[in-house]
């Protein structure tokens, strides 16, 4: 981290000033997430340091209280169903969008991406009214359909990005060697776009797993997801179990991030642009 020898005094000052500033910003980014974790081991139910003692009771509540463990199960169920649906629909659409120019393609793309842009409260209220007319409010199917709509843009974007560097002649090569279209897809295309599909799937999973507002309108009171349980917990009565839940969620997102990073490195290595 040495300053280059040809730097002027002003440049040297700026060099260090920028680094100090960036260090502070990065601290600002990471510290709230880290600071909340130790508090989940607090033996008392308040949120200040120093902590009077160490306890696992909030984790006990989180893992064994049916209100929380039921919410965790519900969240996984909805998120996994959403991921499967969104990945399938989103990948197909991305393949179509990458394939040929057809009328109104830009408009169609804009509509497909719009669930990511439209404020969630508007989506939630609209779906609430429409799904109520179809008896889908308070059902898991309703939540899964709503979350799939919100999650597909992420799949479309990530798979489209992967396809932009995909060599289409490979598909023709497969076809000219006599493979049926579905064989070409599963044997040639899919292995190559798999990193994009997986990162899209991860985004879809996280979108559903973290979503509060739609669930707030569509879920029945006894079928809460984890974020809804946290949100209503915060509004009704603040229990430190929320910090335990937050810690578990941070660990889950860390695992996602590591998976994604490994995928990125793998695909870069395959393309021969590996760093280091």
């Amino acid at each position, binding site marked *: 981290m040495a300053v280059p020898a040809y730097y002027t005094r*002003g440049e040297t000052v700026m060099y260090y000033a920028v680094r100090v500033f960036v260090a502070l*910003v990065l601290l600002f980014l990471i510290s709230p997430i880290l600071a909340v974790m130790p508090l989940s081991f607090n033996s008392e139910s308040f949120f200040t340091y120093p902590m009077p003692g160490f306890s696992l009771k909030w984790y006990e509540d989180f893992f064994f209280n049916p209100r929380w463990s039921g919410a965790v199960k519900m969240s996984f169920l909805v998120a996994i169903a959403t991921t499967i649906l969104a990945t399938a629909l989103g990948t197909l659409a991305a393949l179509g969008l990458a394939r040929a120019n057809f009328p109104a393609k830009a408009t169609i793309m804009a509509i497909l991406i719009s*669930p990511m842009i439209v404020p969630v409260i508007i989506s939630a*209220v609209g779906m609430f009214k429409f799904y109520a007319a179809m008896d889908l409010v308070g059902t898991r199917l309703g939540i899964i359909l709503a979350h799939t709509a919100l999650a597909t843009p992420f799949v479309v974007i990530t798979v489209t990005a992967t396809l932009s560097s995909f060599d289409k002649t490979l598909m023709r090569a497969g076809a000219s060697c006599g493979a049926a279209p579905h064989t070409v897809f599963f044997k040639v295309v899919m292995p190559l776009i798999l990193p994009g599909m997986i990162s899209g799937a991860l985004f879809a999973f996280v979108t559903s797993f973290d979503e509060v507002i739609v669930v707030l309108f569509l879920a029945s009171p006894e079928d809460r997801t984890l974020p809804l349980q946290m949100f209503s917990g915060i509004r009704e009565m603040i229990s430190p179990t929320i*910090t335990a839940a937050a810690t578990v969620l941070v660990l889950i997102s860390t695992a996602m991030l590591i998976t994604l990073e490994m995928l990125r490195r793998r695909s870069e290595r395959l393309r021969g642009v590996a760093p*280091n």
Partner: protein
Amino acid sequence: MAMAQALPNDGVMRAADGTPLKVALARAERREKLKAMALVLPLFAFIIFSFVIPIIIMLYNAVYDPDVAENMPQTVVALKAWDGKDVPSEEVFAAFVADMKEAQKNKQTALIGKRLNYEMSGIRSKVVATGRKVATLDQAPYREAVIGIDKVWGEPETWATIKRSSSNYTPFYVLSMLDLRQNPDGSIENVPPDRAIYKSILVRTLGISLLVTVLTLVLGYPVAYLLATSPQRTASILMIFVLLPFWTSLLVRTTAWMVLMTDGGVFAGLMHFTGVTWFLNLVGLLNGEPELFKTRFATVVAMTHIQLPFTLLPIYSVMKTISPTYMRAAKSLGGTPFYSFLRVYVPQTLPGVAAGCLLTFILCLGYYITPAIVGGPTDQMISGFIERAINSENNWGKASALGVILLTATLILYYVYNKLVGIDRMKLG
């Protein structure tokens, strides 16, 4: 051989089966287009049915409001002939009594009262009370009798309100969310200042979004710069600091800020420890320990924290593509470091700045969770008022009208984003 003979010798290039190459190519391209559309169709249909149509139906409620027309059909007809100046004729009152009796039977008087109450506060209980008493009136003349139940029926303004809300469609909700109202004669004017509250919500939403966008840019730009210019190994370590919050749920990050900002919590402790509290007390900005929870400060800090990666990452990916030789060239041509940076480097990063800032601004407009948890009552944004209009007030017209305003603002910005950045070039992570 018969085939070959049939081919005219006119110099047109042909495919193996004899069709002109141009036609064959067009056919193949058409087939390819159809295949592509068939692949997009399932998702497109799904989004239209589960997302676009529900939103359009919901927004339709901003102008569609049949409560009065459906429940007071005879009164509405009778009022057509009314001149709008004096108390209406006996005919109107007879229709009104008949409608109210019917409404009382169907338990709709509360609905009528609620609808009229939006435009004339205090009338709800009078409508309900009149509905109960009107059953005792069984012979004409009704006019004096009804006015006898409540003086409000003797005022032309009441009837003007009913007449105005008697159409199935009303501009009332959208106008009132912009602090405008329609006079009995149809002209539009500003509501009195003491009742003008909605424009301030709009201004507040735009203000908070703008402030957060500027803060994320100021904090994010240097980070993006360092990430883009550092050696790969250092950069990927620094990147973790950006991506971990990015991947952590919004609710978790808001929860973290709630925990840190509680009175006497970690943030206040840190301010005390670093002397910030002492300093703010010294210059008179603060009296004693800070109260941060449920404030605008907490809302803006938490939102800035959440949005920072959204602004930073597009700037970073543009900076990655800028060759360092430009800066070297600028300096070797005699530019001072600051001048070269400002005139050579910064302009090249502007596409990324536009992309990141627009995205953050668009997403900020729709914030609901964060202000609801760490903000006070005066920090709630449009989304919060939409939620309250539905869950607490059961006022779909108001919620939809606010939705129209929020969605219009968002879609205009989305259009700009699409023109400027291109939605297909959006990158994640």
